[in-house]
């Protein structure tokens, strides 16, 4: 822990402050503001193209916003990137990795880059590979380039966890991950928040978000439509999915539509 930083619990672990980004003509994020208290897990949900990836990228320093700010434990990501990134673990969606390394080599490289002591990197890497069930591939010398989509997610997650950050930002961590590994992932995230860590995940799967997270934000067309604890957001609705559909707007399939499907 950094003693110089304000460690009072009223500083949000992650704060997005009116982040805005326009791609060509589309407003991918339009004043996105969120505050994630410490020790909680936030689920960011929204339809395809809502701006989840864009907002999270701006929050962690991967994409410079047109305007707005982002803070990790009170440290501004864009004015003090080094300070903010030390406490941050990130899993982006669909990006490449150093493809010609094995998972073990990648984690070794990552540990050195992050200034971890070698022995520590070694033990953590071994444990992570084992828990995430990548140890067999590692023994066979499989390169990341040869990994399946789910395996890529898992090694990405391992890089996010290796330096034991305080805040985790994961873009669609459950996508393409098999049910057994999904349970492992859930257990990891639970343990992480129990230890005082903070997690932000994005997802399309309402049921998952509902059973996993304490807080939810619904985002569509680059704007935050609802934000708060699970029960606050849900209000009188029976499920989160109902709230989502109510806010985002349902596209009902009427009797006459797509009739040709039955022919």
């Amino acid at each position, binding site marked *: 822990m950094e003693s110089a930083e304000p460690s009072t619990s009223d500083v949000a672990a992650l704060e997005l402050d009116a982040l805005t980004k326009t*791609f*060509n003509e589309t407003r991918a994020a339009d004043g996105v503001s969120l505050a994630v208290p410490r020790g909680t897990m936030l689920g960011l949900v929204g339809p395809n193209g809502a701006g989840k*990836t*864009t907002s999270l990228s701006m929050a*962690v*320093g*991967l*994409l*410079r916003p047109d305007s707005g700010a982002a803070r990790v434990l009170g440290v501004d990501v864009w004015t003090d*990137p*080094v300070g903010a*990134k*030390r406490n*941050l673990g*990130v899993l*982006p*969606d*669909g*990006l*490449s*990795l*150093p*493809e*010609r*390394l*094995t998972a073990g*080599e990648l984690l*070794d*490289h*990552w540990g*050195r*880059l*992050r*200034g971890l*002591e*070698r022995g520590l990197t*070694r033990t953590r890497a071994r444990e992570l590979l084992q828990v995430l069930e990548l140890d067999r591939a590692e023994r*066979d*010398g*499989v*390169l*990341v*380039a*040869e990994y399946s989509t789910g395996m*890529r997610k898992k090694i990405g997650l391992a*890089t996010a966890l290796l330096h034991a950050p305080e805040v985790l930002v994961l873009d669609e961590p459950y996508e393409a991950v098999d049910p057994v590994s999904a349970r492992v992932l859930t257990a990891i995230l639970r343990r992480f928040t129990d230890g005082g860590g903070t997690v932000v995940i994005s997802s399309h799967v309402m049921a998952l978000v509902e059973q996993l997270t304490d807080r939810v934000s619904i985002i569509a067309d680059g704007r935050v439509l609802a934000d708060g604890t699970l029960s606050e957001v849900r209000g009188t609705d029976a499920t989160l999915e109902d709230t989502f559909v109510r806010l985002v707007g349902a596209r009902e399939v009427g009797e006459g539509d797509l009739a040709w499907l039955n022919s």
Partner: protein
Amino acid sequence: MVELLIRLKFTLGRHTRSGTRWLTVLLLVGGTAFTWFLAVAAASDAVRSSLLMLALAVWAGSWILGPTVTNGVGVLRSQYFTLLPLDRNRVGLGLLVTMFVGFGPVMTLVSAAALAWHAYVSDPATLFLGLLGVLTLVVFSVSLGRLVFRGLGAAMHSRLGMEIASLQWGLIVAGLFFGWVAVQPAFVASGNLTERGFEGTAASVLAVLPTSWPVLAVDAATAGSWSAAFAWLGAFALLTVVTVLVTGRLLAPSVSTRGVGRRSRPLGSRVLEDRRSLLPDTPLGAVVGKELRSWWRDPWRGLELRSALYAGLFIGLLGLVADFPQVMPFAGVFAALIMGMGGSNMYGHDGTALWLTVVGQDRDTIRADVRGRQIAIAVLIAPPATLLSAAAIVASGQYWAVPHVLACLLVFTGVSNGLASLLSVVTVTPGVDPHKRVDANDTGDVQVQVWIMLLAVPLLSSPTLAVLVWGAIQGIPWIAVPVALFNGVPAAWLLGRVAHRRLESRLPETLTRIRYGKEIARRSLSTAGGGLLDRLERGALATNEEIKPTGS
């Protein structure tokens, strides 16, 4: 389906840069005019026959090199169609048909028609034979070009294939740089080409090439031996059919996955193994280790490295063949120069993997990232280049060249290393993202980088080169070696420093360039003015082709 594919091809063609296209048009028209000039101006039937063989071989050669050199932009790739419920082999043949649409094939047809002219002038009765030959020639040349292009792509799945592709590239590059050395004496020796045509070895080599067979068929028929004529043409037709079928198969979308099952540890896992690691436990050590492994294991990077070495080797051999042996000792120097170009888009090579550098940013990591890459390419190129030159000097006994070669190696390795790191940052051009690569040129386009290298390396090495010339005249060539050291090393250091400072100040912008493509990257730069680096970046954005489909 074929019509649809053709329309798609034209749509893609429209997005190709007009500069490249005009150059292509110019070359095609010029080549066609020259072919006809040779055919019409030839003094006799025999001379016309030998000149036609040369022209047709050059046309087929251009088809082999063309798509690779122009980066395959505007080419319909079979992967675009993997998911369509169409018969794979029919898509393959359909794609092949699209290759015959366009200006290139038309001009090839017009040029090949010179064969019909040859037949008509020699003996009007052989005209139909000539016409058949013309059509077969066009089909053969175009399909052969596709075969080689796809062959290169398919090759990237195996080490042997990569080696072959590197050889091919090495030849291409050597030819581009020093082809004239070999061609010029041939022309000089043969005197007036249209008067006497080719004689000696060149003629007998030419006669063996398949593209010469239709010419031989016409000649045989003129001489009255019709059975020989049909044999030549039949053999050529058969070869063409085989080429078309193989190409059609190769063009069929492939659905196989990469790297199924692995038996041995990947290359370099032992050498750098943790316990006895040679590398320090720092960010710099981390980057050097990662880079060396990537250069050893990644076929696309291997291609850059190997083809540089082969190109150096071939340039040396070309010098030998062309009776210009003074070139030989400099084989390693050329290898070092070309390797600099191969390293001029390292961040483009890595694609969106740059996110790790962004997320893991710490006080010293950006500097380490650039310096580590510089160290890795220096370690990879300096020893083999030196070895290549040393071997060439010993083999040819040209020990006079030692100080010259040493000075050139030192200064060019340093300058091009520094420039490579700077261009990698400033003019970064993404290709297909690494885990989706298939073809040999799926890494980013590097036109701008290559041109800048060609101009800037001699410029920044000019102190050494000047002293080298002066020293040679004064009879003290060794004086250039220390000068080269004080020229090359600071150049590498300074340019690398500019590179990591630039990367540090534009880290997310660089990732955006790779991740979201040039349209969105352009918005992070002012439209005019700015420093030299901004201008460079804008130049690359405006010139280098975008191979990658944009999207997040």
